[in-house]
């Protein structure tokens, strides 16, 4: 046990160190591994390539002896199959015959009828040739390969192929070697064609077999241009007799001399045939390969959680394959030649070696903690699995060793390969795959970092903006969010099927890959099998065209003579002597033949030889030397297989051909005509102009080029069709974005979000407590009780409603306006020119946004506002003392004149403010003492209690205080318009809808207020002198609209416990309380419609919108959807562990966030959770929906945008540098898609420009 433990520990430690090593130096290790793979595979080069093509070996005819069975080590160049006698010797007599001179009286059939007719006499000659020397009489009968029956399946060939006798094939076999049948055959071509198999066939046909040359070259056709007929008489000899053969050769040459023939006759070629893989063997083979691929597929499918699944799968397969190759290479190196069929045992070897270890490694590594360093992750993963890997390997080795002792040679060999393969596989796993894995994991981490880049890229470089302090991008940090998606099925739910298919095609580039693979395979097959004979064709073309070939063919008669001197096997002078006279020796047998047949050629040959070259020119070229090469490589195996003789793993010897040239006179051709021959129509004259062969090649290549171009174009079109660049985008500008900077979802769709820059609104001294907005204005209240009103468009601070000394701050703002005003208006009336010089650096901000209707009757003075407090201090300090006497009245007057105020009678809107420019100079003068604004309204501001709730409508701010007081402030002027102190309990929540305000109090009561506006008569008088800025402002307020706020109804015990949430929309007020109930009131008559029960905890979040959707979330983590019209519960789901902190609905889904920092997205109709987003701790509360598909959430110092449909993080916008623990606690979505979030003591205004465009 202890030994085992110790061993285990040691192995684990070793693997750990190894993992560190691999992850530290990936590139050198991969290089080293590749080098060792290549080195181990080097011996494989000596092995023959797998394939079924025959192999050749050439020996000289002269000293040929039948090779012995024993391998002879000394002859290195001999292939190992060259042992023992061959199956057969092939002796071909190549006949070229032509009718010459060609006569216009001849019909096309004459081209081949009489030349073919001569085959019978030649056959007679060959059959009857007898060679007689001292050792005995030899004839063809004795030497030839005797064959028996044809195979039973070949009955139809019985009439054509010889049976029970010599295997001697020639075109004469078509007519059973009988001249009479030939002569009486009316249509030779039909006879030839009737044996051809129908349809497409690849192996040798009967016509090839009998003619011995490819069909094209026979010239047996009506349209042959060369008018030369070529065929062979093939003798298959069982034993080799040099003397007989040479005498036959000499005899035939003597009879039919070929004058310009220079064929080499001194080499015989031995052709070794591999095993033919037939259908019956192919099917199991293919099956095993299919099983193998299924195995690999199922194995690699398990690779997960890595950057590139395909890359790792490829690496795994490469590992196994190269380990196999290494094992074969190593075995070959040590002298073990593989005798097994590699293709057959390969799948079994792969299965035995297996991909398991690789998968186990991957799984183990990816399951290590993500936050560790890559090196350590690899090392840990390795050492975790070290013991099982070693154990498995030991087991497998044992099993294989047991297999080795079965003492069956094949199994032993298999086992040997498997053992070496296992060891090399282990080596590769440890070095190659581990390193690849480390690279992959590193890439994945880099990708994680890159995912965060968009947020930083989205922030423009800091510009020297006076008003918008923009923060430098924070340093990259680990990703704040990890998103957990439940099932991919739901994520795709929204996409139509058609789009999904297209996306799938586009994403995987399936069509292109398929076509590419197909093309590569096809080209490979073409190059490998060469079915069209392109190679031989080109070779033939080249040799035909080369002048060397012509010269060689024409000018070597002396060589021919030399060759004929030693026709037989040299060395024995006696035999030479006996052979030499053989041609001259008048054989008795030819005399038996009809003289007429012999006479003609004998007379004709010299005649024709001296005749000037006529149209049918018989030439002997190098390609005739080994004419059998032009035949299919299955030619000989199929010929032998007809007699049930296999050539698999055996060889035949092909002897040099005997050339025979036949020239026939037109007279003879006419004599041998069949009566029906003349009926054939004359051949069409020159179907096409005889093309130069080069031209043909050019044409071919041009065609190929065109086809290639077409293919490329087609692929390109296909690509464009299937993968348009702009996936569902209509924006042209989308293309210019750098793809790498933007996050993309699975479908390559990158959301149209461009630069997002937050505007920081600063000014509050303490944390912001309440936020309210009506789209145009934004009111915020901090813990210090200060309320600031901001322009939601530009982020300018409009008003500050101070608690103590607020007027000073407010005046500061107006001061700034005063400074900037003259500059803006170009007013030279001001005496303080020195001041202008100082202030020139501050550009003014013009507002282009439409103002609320409230200001219609007033000049737009907002451009005069400059709230750039931060950059002003020096000038401010400088300016304050000497500015006492400044009068801005003229300036404002001009502004009013420019505005052309409408007739005062039309100014009916209730909050008509006084000219705001009046007071500042006044206050400036009264610098020394505090003069709080004394509102003449219904009360005095209560500065003592904190603001607990705030609402903003129009330009009225409703603030509920902890003292139970409700105040209404003018948002633009910062004046208190009215206050109500009917209640004493603190106002916890406020709702402001139309002219009603609903306040929820701490004691659970609900107060309904009505805001009434009474127009005072003094308004008209005030309107008259607008320029009187010197008048103190306080009486002006009193002459304005009188706004009164009356308590219309108070529901004392709306809830048993404090009301926590209050929402109003669509004429309904919904309250949620800690007493587990939700109540719905009608706003008009404050009537309680429903009490909704269903939660088992206090209500923490409520959502209601104009479409009467009501959702509530409670402390129990449950979310309920209600029907507001009937008060029934639509659905009820538990989504969070802990409180539901906020709830938002869109038309299709409900988004909730909880205390468990989880944001869940639910399907609204079914209540099924679509997916959830895990957030950082402590920042899950704030969220908002900008549009149907854009969700925004607050995080630690940042806001994140999510695509609701897919749950993808689109962008993260950092709000500031100081993001240490400052979470976004509140988030308000404005109408114009700006997001306001409170961020400590600052507010951030974030625009989403694309949504803006969309809304416009």
């Amino acid at each position, binding site marked *: 046990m202890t030994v085992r433990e110790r061993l285990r520990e040691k192995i684990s430690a070793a693997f750990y160190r190894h993992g560190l090593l691999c992850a530290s130096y990936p590139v050198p290790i991969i290089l080293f591994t590749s080098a060792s793979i290549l080195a181990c595979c080097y011996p494989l080069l000596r092995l023959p390539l797998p394939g079924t093509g025959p192999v050749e070996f050439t020996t000289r005819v002269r000293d040929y002896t039948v090779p012995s069975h024993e391998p002879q080590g000394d002859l290195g160049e001999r292939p190992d199959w060259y042992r023992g006698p061959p199956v057969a010797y092939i002796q071909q007599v190549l006949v070229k015959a032509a009718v010459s001179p060609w006569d216009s009286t001849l019909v096309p059939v004459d081209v081949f009828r009489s030349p073919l007719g001569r085959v019978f006499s030649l056959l007679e000659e060959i059959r009857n040739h007898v060679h007689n020397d001292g050792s005995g009489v030899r004839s063809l009968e004795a030497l030839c390969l005797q064959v028996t029956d044809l195979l039973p399946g070949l009955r139809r060939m019985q009439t054509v192929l010889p049976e029970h006798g010599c295997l001697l094939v020639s075109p004469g076999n078509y007519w059973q070697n009988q001249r009479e049948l030939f002569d009486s055959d009316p249509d030779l071509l039909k006879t030839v064609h009737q044996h051809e198999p129908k349809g497409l066939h690849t192996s040798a046909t009967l016509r090839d077999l009998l003619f011995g040359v490819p069909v094209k070259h026979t010239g047996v056709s009506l349209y042959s241009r060369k008018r030369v007929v070529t065929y062979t008489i093939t003798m298959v000899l069982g034993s080799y007799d040099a003397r007989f053969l040479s005498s036959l050769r000499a005899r035939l040459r003597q009879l039919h001399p070929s004058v310009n023939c220079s064929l080499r006759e001194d080499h015989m070629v031995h052709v070794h045939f591999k095993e033919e893989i037939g259908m019956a063997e192919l099917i*199991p083979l293919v099956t*095993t390969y299919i099983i193998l691929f299924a195995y690999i597929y*199922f194995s690699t499918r398990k690779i997960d959680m890595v950057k590139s699944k395909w890359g790792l799968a490829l690496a795994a397969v490469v590992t196994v394959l190269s380990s196999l190759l290494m094992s074969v290479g190593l075995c070959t190196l040590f002298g073990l030649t593989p005798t097994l069929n590699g293709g057959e045992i390969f799948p079994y070897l792969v*299965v035995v070696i297996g991909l398991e270890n690789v998968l186990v490694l991957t799984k183990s590594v990816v399951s290590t903690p993500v936050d560790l360093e890559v090196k350590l992750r690899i090392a840990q993963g390795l050492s975790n699995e070290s013991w099982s890997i070693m154990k498995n390997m030991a087991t497998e080795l044992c099993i294989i060793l047991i297999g080795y002792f079965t003492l*069956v040679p094949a199994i032993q060999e298999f086992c040997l390969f498997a053992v070496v393969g296992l060891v090399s596989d282990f080596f590769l796993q440890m070095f190659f795959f581990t390193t690849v894995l480390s690279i992959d994991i590193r890439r994945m981490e880099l990708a994680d970092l890159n995912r965060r880049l968009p947020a930083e890229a989205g922030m423009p470089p800091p510009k020297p903006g006076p008003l918008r302090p923009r923060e430098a991008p924070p340093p990259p940090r680990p990703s704040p969010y990890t998103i957990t998606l439940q099932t991919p099925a739901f994520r795709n739910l929204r996409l139509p099927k058609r789009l999904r298919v297209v996306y799938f095609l586009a994403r995987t580039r399936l069509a292109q890959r398929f076509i590419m693979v197909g093309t590569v395979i096809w080209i490979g097959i073409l190059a490998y099998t060469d079915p069209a004979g392109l190679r031989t064709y080109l070779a033939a073309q080249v040799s035909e065209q080369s002048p060397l070939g012509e010269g060689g063919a024409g000018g070597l008669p002396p060589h021919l003579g030399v060759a004929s001197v030693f026709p037989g096997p040299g060395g024995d002078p006696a035999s030479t002597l006996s052979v030499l006279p053989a041609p001259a020796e008048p054989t008795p047998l030819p005399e038996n033949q009809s003289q007429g047949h012999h006479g003609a050629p004998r007379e004709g040959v010299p005649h024709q030889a001296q005749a000037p070259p006529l149209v049918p020119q018989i030439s002997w070229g190098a390609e005739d030397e080994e004419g059998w090469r032009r035949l299919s490589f299955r030619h000989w195996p199929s010929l032998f297989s007809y007699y049930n003789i296999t050539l698999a793993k055996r060889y035949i010897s092909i002897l040099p051909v005997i050339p025979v040239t036949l020239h026939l006179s037109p007279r003879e051709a006419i004599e041998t005509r069949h009566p029906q021959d003349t009926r054939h129509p004359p051949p069409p004259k020159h179907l096409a102009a005889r093309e130069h062969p080069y031209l043909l090649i050019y044409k071919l290549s041009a065609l190929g080029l065109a086809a290639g171009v077409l293919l490329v174009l087609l692929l390109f079109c296909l690509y464009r069709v299937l993968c348009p660049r702009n996936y569902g985008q209509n924006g042209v500008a989308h293309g210019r974005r750098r793809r790498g900077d933007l996050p993309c979802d699975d479908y390559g769709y990158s959301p149209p979000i461009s630069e997002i820059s937050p505007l920081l609104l600063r000014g509050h001294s303490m944390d912001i407590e309440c936020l309210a907005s009506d789209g145009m204005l934004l009111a915020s209240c901090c813990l210090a009780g200060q309320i600031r009103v901001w322009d939601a468009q530009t982020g300018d601070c409009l008003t500050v409603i101070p608690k103590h000394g607020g007027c000073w701050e407010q005046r500061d703002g107006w001061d700034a306006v005063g400074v900037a005003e003259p500059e803006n208006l170009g007013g030279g009336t001001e005496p303080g020119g020195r001041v202008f010089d100082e202030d020139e650096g501050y550009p003014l901000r013009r507002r282009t946004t439409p103002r609320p209707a409230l200001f219609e009757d007033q000049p737009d003075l907002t451009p005069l506002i400059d709230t750039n407090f931060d950059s002003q201090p020096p000038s401010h300090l400088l300016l304050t003392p000497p500015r006492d006497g400044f009068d801005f009245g003229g300036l404002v007057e001009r502004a009013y004149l420019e505005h052309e105020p409408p007739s005062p009678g039309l100014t009916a809107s209730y909050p008509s403010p006084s000219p705001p420019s009046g007071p500042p100079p006044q206050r400036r003068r009264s610098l020394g003492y505090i003069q709080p604004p004394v509102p003449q309204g219904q009360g005095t501001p209560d500065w003592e209690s904190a603001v607990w709730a705030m609402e903003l409508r129009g330009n009225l701010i409703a603030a509920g205080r902890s003292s139970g007081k409700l105040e209404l402030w003018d948002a633009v002027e910062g004046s208190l318009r009215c206050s109500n102190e009917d209640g004493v309990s603190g106002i916890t929540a406020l709702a402001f809808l139309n002219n009603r305000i609903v306040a929820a109090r701490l004691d659970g009561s609900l107060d309904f207020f009505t805001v009434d506006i009474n127009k005072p008569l003094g308004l008209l008088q005030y309107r008259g002198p607008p320029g009187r800025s010197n008048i103190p402002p306080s009486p002006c307020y009193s002459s304005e609209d009188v706004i009164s706020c009356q308590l219309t109804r108070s529901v004392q015990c709306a809830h048993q416990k404090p009301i926590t949430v209050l929402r109003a929309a669509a004429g309904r007020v919904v309250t949620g309380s800690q007493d587990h109930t939700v109540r719905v009131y009608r706003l008009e008559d404050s009537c309680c419609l429903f009490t909704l029960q269903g939660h088992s905890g206090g209500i923490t979040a409520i959502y209601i919108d104009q479409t009467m959707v009501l959702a509530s979330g409670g402390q129990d983590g449950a979310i309920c959807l209600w029907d507001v019209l009937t008060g029934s519960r639509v659905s009820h789901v538990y989504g969070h562990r802990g409180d539901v902190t906020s709830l938002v609905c869109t038309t299709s889904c409900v988004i909730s966030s909880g205390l468990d920092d989880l944001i869940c997205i639910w399907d609204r109709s079914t209540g099924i959770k679509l997916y959830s987003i895990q957030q950082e701790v402590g920042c899950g509360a704030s969220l908002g929906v900008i549009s149907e598909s854009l969700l925004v959430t607050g995080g630690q110092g940042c806001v994140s945008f999510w695509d609701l449909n897919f749950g993808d993080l689109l962008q993260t916008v950092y709000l500031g540098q100081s993001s240490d623990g400052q979470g976004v606690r509140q988030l308000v979505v404005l109408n114009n898609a700006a997001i306001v979030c409170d961020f400590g003591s600052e507010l951030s205004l974030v625009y989403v420009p694309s949504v803006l465009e969309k809304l416009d």
Partner: protein
Amino acid sequence: MPRLEEHCWRRSCTSRVESKNYYRENWVASKAEEMMSIITSVLSNVYGSLHSVQTANLIRRGLVLFTVGVFLALVLNLLQVQRNVTLFPEEVMATLFSSAWWIPPCCGTAAAVVGLLYPCIDSHLGEPHKFKREWASVMRCIAVFVGINHASAKLDFANNVQLSLTLAALSLGLWWTFDRSRSGFGLGIGTAFLATVITQLLVYNGVYQYTYPDFLYVRSWLPCIFFSGGVTAGNIGRQLAMGGVEKLHND
């Protein structure tokens, strides 16, 4: 003579799994057929009464197993065909599809029965098979099974004992590598025994014969092939049974 030998080889191998229920004249075969049908009907009744979805699942599994069995029977037949006739594929294909057309369906049925029995027995014994339950392992198992057949067909052994021992070792190795369950072993042995007996009976009644019978009337390696075939079919069946459950969970 070689022709006869070949014929017998084909017969022998194609009837590797229970090719029992097809010989009309044979009483035993008909009995076996009856039994098989009873078993299948009982099984299907049991499952059908449980749940209609389960029945559909069962039928689907059975179909898959049947297809696999037929396919393997065809392929392994071809594997056993002697080499020197391979030059005439048309003849081989003709004999394959004409003379012994009833063999692949038999093999398919047998594979379906065995493959359905395995998970059934597992659930009855209450020990679900957990060892290497994944498709990659199943594929490996099939590959090894084909390899065993390959070895029995193509390798030249010195004598029959050696051949049989080697194949027996290989079969045991297959079981140990991919199954390792007692029920699997028992069922495999049962399958092998039953199938061998049936083959013996068939040969005894003269349906066909072996040229070189060394184990009563049949070849001695036949039980090994049957055993590994049973284990393989069981492996597939188990994976199918589990795959269905897994898929349901995923959905």
